[in-house]
């Protein structure tokens, strides 16, 4: 199997070719985990770097992410069967009363691109829904987004729901969005705040890797 070819197909967003190459790799008996890490995730790492280095835009990343997803859809059942776990599980959503999802979607896409399993609650999410989904799926990280100053306080409300349920310390809670800053994150007891989607993904990845190394 040519991992370089698969990686390039992901980078260029050629979903059809990605599916073909992934199936081909499976037929050749290549390790599922190796196809995932050296083909799909590695490609998304390059895509992320190209974005950070101002060589491509988000649309190219999205096209690549869709191609990666096409390949991932084939691999996931096999991964589950062999007991290979994703790097981590992440619940993400925009707080109640807030209809903005562009930033939240970027974060979700970048986190998916690094190999995490994303549970996207969407927008206008009731406080308790974050807790319920995190508990249901056994999440590692919960990401809470707010784009308006008036909905930003709801981030604190969500964190209080985790406290009230007595499960606050089971999850790393990351916060973000236009009006959010480090001081606010500190004041509501969030574990991490990042200013942009790239940093959010890197922050999450570092945490997940250190968690898996324990």
């Amino acid at each position, binding site marked *: 199997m040519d991992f370089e070819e698969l990686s390039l197909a992901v980078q260029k967003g050629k979903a059809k070719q990605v599916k073909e190459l992934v199936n081909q790799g499976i037929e050749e008996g290549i390790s599922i985990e190796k196809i995932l890490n050296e083909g799909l995730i590695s490609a998304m790492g390059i895509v992320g770097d190209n974005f950070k280095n101002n060589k491509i835009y*988000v*649309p190219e990343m*999205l096209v690549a992410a869709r191609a990666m997803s096409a390949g991932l859809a084939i691999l996931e059942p096999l991964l589950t069967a062999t007991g290979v776990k994703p790097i981590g599980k992440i619940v993400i959503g925009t707080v109640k*009363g807030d209809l903005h999802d*562009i930033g939240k979607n970027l974060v979700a896409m970048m986190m998916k691109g690094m190999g995490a399993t994303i549970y996207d609650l969407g927008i*206008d999410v009731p406080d308790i829904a974050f807790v319920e989904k995190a508990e249901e799926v056994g999440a590692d990280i919960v990401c809470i987004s707010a784009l*308006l*100053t*008036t909905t930003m306080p709801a981030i604190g409300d969500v964190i209080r729901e985790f406290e009230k349920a007595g499960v606050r310390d089971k999850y790393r809670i990351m916060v973000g969005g236009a009006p959010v800053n480090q001081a606010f994150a500190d004041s509501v007891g969030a574990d991490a705040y990042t200013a942009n989607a790239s940093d959010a993904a890197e922050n999450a990845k570092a945490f997940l890797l250190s968690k898996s190394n324990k």
Partner: protein
Amino acid sequence: MSRQFTKLAYTSVDDFTYGSCPNPVTTKNGLVIGGGLIYPEVNFTLPPMNIRQETMPEVLRIYKDIIDGVLKKAHELHAPGLVVEFETLPDMTEHPEWGIEIHKLLRDTMFEYEAKYGLKSAMRMTPNDLREMSRPPVMRSGQYWEAMVKTFEGTARDGADILAIESTGGKEVNDEAIVNADLRTSIFALGCLASRDMKWLWTNISDIAKAHNAISGGDSACGFANTSMVLAEQGFIPKVYATVMRTITTPRALIAIENGAVGPGKDCAYENVYLKAITGTPIALEGKSAACAHFSPIGNIAASVADLWSNESVQQVKLLSGFAPVVSTEQLIYDCRLMNTAANKGQAKLMRDFLVESDCYLDPQAYILRPEIAFEIGNEIVKTQDPFIRTLNTAKLTLEILQRAVKNKELVLEERELNWLDILESQIEEIPEDEEAFIAEMKKEVDTSKYNPAEYGI
């Protein structure tokens, strides 16, 4: 009755300057917008806080503090006039009595300053468009629409001078299109969905304005073009896509004026430049003095043909000098004072050209706002009365203008931007000119859980 525009309101691009226009608007208290002077328009909002029934006293106190600071500064700096925009936050439109109460507090304080100091001011009332809160959006009925109507009616009754909105018809489809730089879907969202919504919406808004002797002002495609500009500024999407998004919001916006709006158009609607060229109505715009609200590559050129100069929005937060809305007020007044001084000396066109040329060669979004380009795009738009065709042709012309500017070395674009000029062109080259056929294609492509075609009559 609908108006039609078949030619530009101007015959010479030399007359196309800030502070004046062929069809100025006069408020009840005699403020003439577009009559020779450019006026500051101040917008502001709450610091981070929850809005509930129990926090309303605090909300009202904050707005009172803001308006007192703004008006006091305007009086001290001898502002010849002032427009104040009250843009509601969602909770304030969802509970119309809250928005109506805040508006009355603001407007009454403005009346007080007029009576006491002769400071002539006007209120722009901008309820937000709540209809997108239903998923998919319910456009022509329901609790959200009814709340918006109550807000418009109650505030117009209480003295709101200008009614405005940042309407969101088609945004539910366009949001995903933006992050994908999907121009084909954007043309569907703006040319087919938004355009149908605008006719219905602005007929209603204009009726409310007429019933209360208020001015039917104008709309903004903030959620389309400004979101694109901001995402481009952050390096997320191509600048050339944001540039085309700017121009293709114009046919949609024109429908407001065809159906009762008379201006001044809203500050974040940079498409106002084309609207002014076509209709001669006065416009508000925002640029460098709105850096408090968002950054942009059009800080000076945005002022070149504006009749109101705005800060877009700023929260009530303390800076070293004082509260941020007062800082914005002072900056806007000085900007306007400089421009009015030049105009009073007969040099408005020269100042306009300074403003244009300082930005226009540095970014495609600035280049496209040049007065000559505005006339070129405006002339293209008035060739037909069909919103979809107007939208499609504006997209094509914009890409052509940008290619030409690059070829003529009037504009230097990064390689990735040049690539996207080609990508965008190829995205739309196969769009059929028959709207029915295009709609049929898009109905198959766009997820119907995101929008309801029936809400747009298609």
